[in-house]
């Protein structure tokens, strides 16, 4: 379907990228003109995002379109390609941008480090580079876009660069992003084969054509997993997430967590299923295991956080883990030729990408509003905000319920699909894998249940109870622009939760592209027997779920109960103080703090944490209790690596003598040695 004015879909995508870049450049000319930037440019960016979402949605079912941009180096132009996979992720990018940019328009304030105009440029370059990553069809364009994405997001993370912790967080992020990028570069190097194709070897079209042997394809996949895992926050490369998210301004956190992490998922899917053709079963098992460990780790750490954005960052790690579990399952099924099941697992992954993008962006934006209203991210200083910020609280509740994977909201749909994929695993031709599947399913179920715990903690400590600080009663609700961003994302959560059948039908084209079959294609008419209300991916006899019926029946029962109580009895209310078992002296400090609420999990999962406690003695007049929960991996992996690197650097520093003649000597010796080698 060509768009209006005879433009192809891919032309629209390129126009969108150009428009975002133009908006960014537009901001440079008036970097201090705050109303112009916040009231014109950001909403314009949001509008462009909406346009992108619509165009990408229209392109979902189309045959792939390609394009060569006359950019880049001589003989090395940018190749672009728009297929269903790109279109899906572009749709995600556009839809999230629409919400986040509108929110940002109302959220960003003048006095925050980087000048608003420069920040606006960085933000829009970030958006454009993400879109380019998703469109790139050769390694060169991909890496250029990937690196500009990393750099622009680095600058955004360090917006408040006057604070040393933020600079440190940004540094860590940049470091891990680049370690990952190197791995990706090597991966593309492996993928392009023996170099017969010359410069053209770096196009994805060429890489698709090459049939690598088991060793090289495993090497390429391993490198891709490492590279994209570093961006996604896969264990053990997750450490930057809990540092960078609290540092970044909230819309940027939302964008990074909701969308940027998904580009890594996109990359794994692109390399694992599109560029490589024959997955080996142990890739699947490895990815599955890594995913499970990441998911459990993320959620266990999320439970003990007391900074609301760190909590969400760990929750993102958990969700990334679940996505990788789904990818691992898909790879395993695909390697054994079970396409219908692979399609089911992949559908759950794609659906969860959409879900996570919607609810995590929403929750990060909610923290942003709370942060502006209260000036603190510390859960121990919040509480009772539902009375002062009803809009944010109720929309946040939607995000929380979605994130906790509760029906009838969206998180539940993908969890449901994933569990179905686990459940209908018929005998895999391998004993250990066969028995690992139930254990993995159990771990997924445990993660999902723990996510509920975490989300209750997040919401209850921020919004419910009594305000833990006196100044909280001056908190104000979000403004109109912020609110509309929140409403848009919450609406996405609800829509994805209530109408999964529409979305999954659309996802079929992506699974067809990657696996050769889609769940609707596999199940045939049986899946559609109950119409749009019933989600029945295999057949209604086996499993079905109807969120709309579900929600309606709950609402009907609620309404009936209310009306009956009102009709037969009364709805009188007497307002007094809280009872609390007759305890007379209640203060806000007697509620559970964030630490208190997480304490049972800290006890149950004690071996996972590296805890340092400061307990007051019983005679202490001003007792202070402090507990610091850290990550073992810092001490087991990162510090040793850092030490080795430092040691190596000190060795190399020996070469640095400070005299020009010695440096010239180095050059000379190198030249001589090289000449000798060439000659030999």
């Amino acid at each position, binding site marked *: 379907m060509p768009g209006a004015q005879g433009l192809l879909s891919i032309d629209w995508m390129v126009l969108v990228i150009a428009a975002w870049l133009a908006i960014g450049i537009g901001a440079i000319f008036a970097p201090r003109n705050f109303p112009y930037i916040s009231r014109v440019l950001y909403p314009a960016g949001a509008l462009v995002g909406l346009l992108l979402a619509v165009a990408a949605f229209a392109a979902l079912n189309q045959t792939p379109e390609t394009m060569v941009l006359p950019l880049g180096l001589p003989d090395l132009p940018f190749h672009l390609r728009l297929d269903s996979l790109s279109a899906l992720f572009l749709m995600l990018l556009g839809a999230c941008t629409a919400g986040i940019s509108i929110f940002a328009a109302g959220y960003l304030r003048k006095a925050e480090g980087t000048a608003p105009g420069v920040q606006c440029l960085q933000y829009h370059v970030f958006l454009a580079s993400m879109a380019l990553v998703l469109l790139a069809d050769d390694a060169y364009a991909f890496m250029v876009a990937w690196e500009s994405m990393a750099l622009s997001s680095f600058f955004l993370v360090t917006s408040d660069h006057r604070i040393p912790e933020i600079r440190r967080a940004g540094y860590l992020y940049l470091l891990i992003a680049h370690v990952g990028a190197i791995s990706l570069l090597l991966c593309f190097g492996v993928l392009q084969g023996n170099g017969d194709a010359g410069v053209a070897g770096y196009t994805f079209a060429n890489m698709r054509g090459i049939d690598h042997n088991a060793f090289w394809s495993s090497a390429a996949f391993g490198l891709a997993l490492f590279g994209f895992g570093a961006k996604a926050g896969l264990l053990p490369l997750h450490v930057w997430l809990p540092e960078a998210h609290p540092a970044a301004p909230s819309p940027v956190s939302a964008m990074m967590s909701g969308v940027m992490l998904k580009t890594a998922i996109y990359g794994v899917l692109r390399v694992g299923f599109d560029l490589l053709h024959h997955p080996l079963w142990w890739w699947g098992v490895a990815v599955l295991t890594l995913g499970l460990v990441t998911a459990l780790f993320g959620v266990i750490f999320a439970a003990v956080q007391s900074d609301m954005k760190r909590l969400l960052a760990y929750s993102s790690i958990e969700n990334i883990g679940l996505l990788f579990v789904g990818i691992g399952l898909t790879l395993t099924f695909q390697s054994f030729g079970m396409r219908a099941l692979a399609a089911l697992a992949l559908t759950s992954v794609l659906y969860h990408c959409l879900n996570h993008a919607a609810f995590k962006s929403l929750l990060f934006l909610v923290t942003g509003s709370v942060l502006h209203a209260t000036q603190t991210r510390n859960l121990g200083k919040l509480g009772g905000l539902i009375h002062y910020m009803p809009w944010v609280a109720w929309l946040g509740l939607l995000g929380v319920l979605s994130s906790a994977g509760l029906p009838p909201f969206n998180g539940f749909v993908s969890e449901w699909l994933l569990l179905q994929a686990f459940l209908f695993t*018929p*005998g895999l031709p391998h*004993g*250990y894998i066969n*028995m*690992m599947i139930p*254990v993995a399913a159990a771990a997924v179920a445990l993660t999902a249940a723990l996510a509920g715990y975490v989300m209750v903690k997040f919401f209850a400590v921020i919004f419910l109870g009594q305000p833990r600080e006196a100044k909280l009663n001056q908190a104000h609700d979000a403004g109109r622009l912020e609110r509309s961003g929140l409403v848009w994302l919450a609406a996405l959560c609800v829509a994805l939760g209530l109408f999964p059948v529409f979305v999954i039908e659309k996802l079929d084209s992506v699974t067809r592209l990657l696996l050769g079959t889609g769940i609707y294609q596999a199940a045939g008419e049986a899946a559609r027997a109950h119409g749009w209300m019933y989600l029945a991916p295999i057949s209604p006899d086996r499993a079905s779920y109807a969120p709309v019926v579900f929600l309606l029946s709950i609402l009907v029962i609620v309404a009936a109960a209310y009306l009956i109580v009102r009709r037969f009895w009364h709805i009188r209310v007497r307002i007094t103080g809280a009872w609390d078992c007759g305890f007379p002296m209640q203060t806000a400090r007697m509620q559970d703090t964030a630490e208190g609420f997480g304490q049972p999990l800290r006890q*149950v999962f004690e*071996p996972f944490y590296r805890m340092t406690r400061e307990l007051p003695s019983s005679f202490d007049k001003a007792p202070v209790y402090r507990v610091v929960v850290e990550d073992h991996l810092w001490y087991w992996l990162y510090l040793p690596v850092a030490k080795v690197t430092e040691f190596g650097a000190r060795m190399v520093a020996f070469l640095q003598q400070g005299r020009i003649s010695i440096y010239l000597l180095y050059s000379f010796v190198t030249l001589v040695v090289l000449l000798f080698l060439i000659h030999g």
Partner: protein
Amino acid sequence: MSTGLHLDLPFYAQVINLLAAMLLLLSFAMLAQRRILSLINLFMAQGVVLFASTAVVAAATNQHHLYWSALITLVLKVFLLPWILHRLIRRLNVKWDIETLINIPTTMMIGLVLVIFSFNLALPISALAGTITRSTLGIAMAAVMLAFLMMITRSKAVPQVIGFLAMENGLFFAATSATYGMPMVVELGIALDVLVGMVILGVFFFQIREQFDSLDIRHMEKLKDD
């Protein structure tokens, strides 16, 4: 309707499968149990399961010597050994909770891994075996390993002995389920061994306690220095 149903198995094989599952269940219950008294009762229940399974195998395959071993199991493992153990703990006065070296959930998690391991280990063997109860071999192996795990994770002497006896139960179950029992002589010999072993260990308990004033075998670590 589905591949999961297995209606083709004869009835007694299903009963043996059920009993095998119960044996495993009891092994796990022992792993999770802190009280010595309950541990002995669980051991007794294992004896009952063993007795029942041996009797069923005997009835199904019409092998008379198995009736005898069922009877021996009943007398030895349901009545005699639990009775001795009960007497022992009353004399030693050690009814209190046992502290485990690793906490219970972790132990169970390791147990789960062991079960997966032994199930997979048994798969090729059971595929070769021609007996009706071949799939129970994996469970028997799992029961042995779980008993072993229990011995490792307990620091008191009495639970360790119970673990040892439970291990013998697993072996015995493997023998009946995989090969329809051992020759009578061997079986009698083992029964006697177990009994004698029990008595000797009983004597040891008193000795250990006299020496260290406790049945905590971690005290034995001190012997190393001598």
